[in-house]
């Protein structure tokens, strides 16, 4: 295997055109550089209202860069970001947040000198109207009300993640961007947080998340997209992708580590099985 081949072409797992319907969030041919380092090379995606869209891929693949560019923290070199049909590529991050694109950044990024309640209040400062209130967040995370006057630095990793999530929710976003929720958290805690997704979606939100743990992403997403070295190597529904396809898309190596027969469908009920690439 040499390294001089071209990038793997994007595989749409069920071989069909991408989902029809107006996307709430769309990215077209995004090219993003960090200085001269090319982080994303022509990424496109469409997130439909009400779905959970997961971006997976190895470190350095560009997942967080993609989310941060969508949130407005990074300007792309080329391509566009569309929200509800409108081009928001040149919009500043705070303007996007006020329109309803709210990100929970990697590493929580709570306001350390503020209490839990104050963090939530900052989230409300520029909130849109909607079902989410501080009260609702306290209800969702039962422990939070009692500890609301504590400095966030005293909370555990999982609790901080909950506050960060709450801070984003009270802004009543239309699309919630979750950047590596599971980072630094124990698996049990991660499960608990992801278990809240249905409740969140029930209030009319759409979720675009980046997840390091591929299996976790496949568990919660309605559609996934795998990035490798800044390009898309796989997209589709979890039910339609095989473990082999995921592995190949993740590492970029055809036939990587095929000790067993492989090619088994990942989820039962899939209409397609393959022997990998």
């Amino acid at each position: 295997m040499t390294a001089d081949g071209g990038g793997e072409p994007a595989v749409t797992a069920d071989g069909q055109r991408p989902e029809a319907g107006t996307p709430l969030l769309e990215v077209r041919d995004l090219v993003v550089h960090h200085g001269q380092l090319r982080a994303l090379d022509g990424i496109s995606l469409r997130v439909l209202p009400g779905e959970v869209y997961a971006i997976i891929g190895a470190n350095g693949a560009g997942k967080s860069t993609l989310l941060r560019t969508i949130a407005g923290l990074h300007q792309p070199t080329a391509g566009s970001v569309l929200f509800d049909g409108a081009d928001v590529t040149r919009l500043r991050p705070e303007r996007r947040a006020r329109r309803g694109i709210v990100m929970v950044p990697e590493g929580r990024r709570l306001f350390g000198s503020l209490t839990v309640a104050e963090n939530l209040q900052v989230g409300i400062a520029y909130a849109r109207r909607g079902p989410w209130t501080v009260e609702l967040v306290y209800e969702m995370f039962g422990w939070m009300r009692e500890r609301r006057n504590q400095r966030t630095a005293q909370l555990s990793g999982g609790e901080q993640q909950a506050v960060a999530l709450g801070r984003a929710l009270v802004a009543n976003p239309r699309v919630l961007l979750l950047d590596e929720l599971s980072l630094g958290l124990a698996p049990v805690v991660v499960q608990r947080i992801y278990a809240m997704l249905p409740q969140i979606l029930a209030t009319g939100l759409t979720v675009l998340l980046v997840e390091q743990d591929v299996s976790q992403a496949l568990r919660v997403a309605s559609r996934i997209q795998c990035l490798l070295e800044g390009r898309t190597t796989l997209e589709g529904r979890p039910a339609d992708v095989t473990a082999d396809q995921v592995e190949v898309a993740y590492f970029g190596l055809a036939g990587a580590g095929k000790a067993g027969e492989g090619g088994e469908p990942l989820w039962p009920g899939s209409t397609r099985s393959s022997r990998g690439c």
Partner: protein
Amino acid sequence: MAWVNAIIQGVLTGGLYALFACGLSLMFGVMKVINLAHGDLAVVAGYVAIGIITVTHIPVLWSVVVVVPVMAVAGYLLQRTMIQSALNRGILTTLIVTFGLSVVIENGLLQFFTANSRAIGTGLALISGSFKLGSQIQIGYLLVVIFAVAVVVLLGLQYFLSASRYGRLIRAVADDQEAAQLAGADYRHVFGVAAAIAMGTVALGGIAYGMYSQLAPTTGTDTILLFAFAAVVIGGLGSLWGTLLGGVVLGVAQQIGAQINISDEVLAGYIVFLAVLVLRPQGLTTRRAQS
């Protein structure tokens, strides 16, 4: 008894110094900017007050009501234009830019007003008078009023920062600018508000100094900025009430120095400043050393 007088004098001057310092501390805490023109802007406020009084003959205290808000707005504009664009290029650039601003202001004042010092006449007998405690201690009313004003300002600031929406935003932006953006806050605007507060308070300090002592074009740097800096360092960066403590320590040190030798007043203050830097660089109120 002269010593007691000196100490009381020093404590009260601390209030004045706190007015100088709290804006500097705020701007550094929120946006990591050290505005080297901080003191000069206070002097400008003083000169503007003098100008307004000379032209319109309004009472001295009314000039405060006019000048302070105007300076606050000017501070906002200065932040949104000059200082923000300097910040975009790096924190060192703000030092250079504000240094340049300081030079321009001082030379401008020199040009228009000559090097003579001026005072803001406090015609009111109440303000220029003093009262006696016991038989030996004499305290000027003005200084007491300034101290009281400083305390009120600090209380107001503390309340603003802890309980108001903008105060929360200022603290949030100071903690994590990017996370604040993600929450919908335009940090440039929040910086502007912080700068407005800083300018307003230092303008108040400048006018107070003009009443208490005298203003000259160079007073901004050689007195106000340096004393503000010393008060912040002694009291501890990031602490609002620390600026009062720092101011008080500085004032007391100066007065004690003056008792020893009248020309050692300012020197004594700086000796204490140096001592704090060497022995406890995080200041008297901060628990850990600041990075």
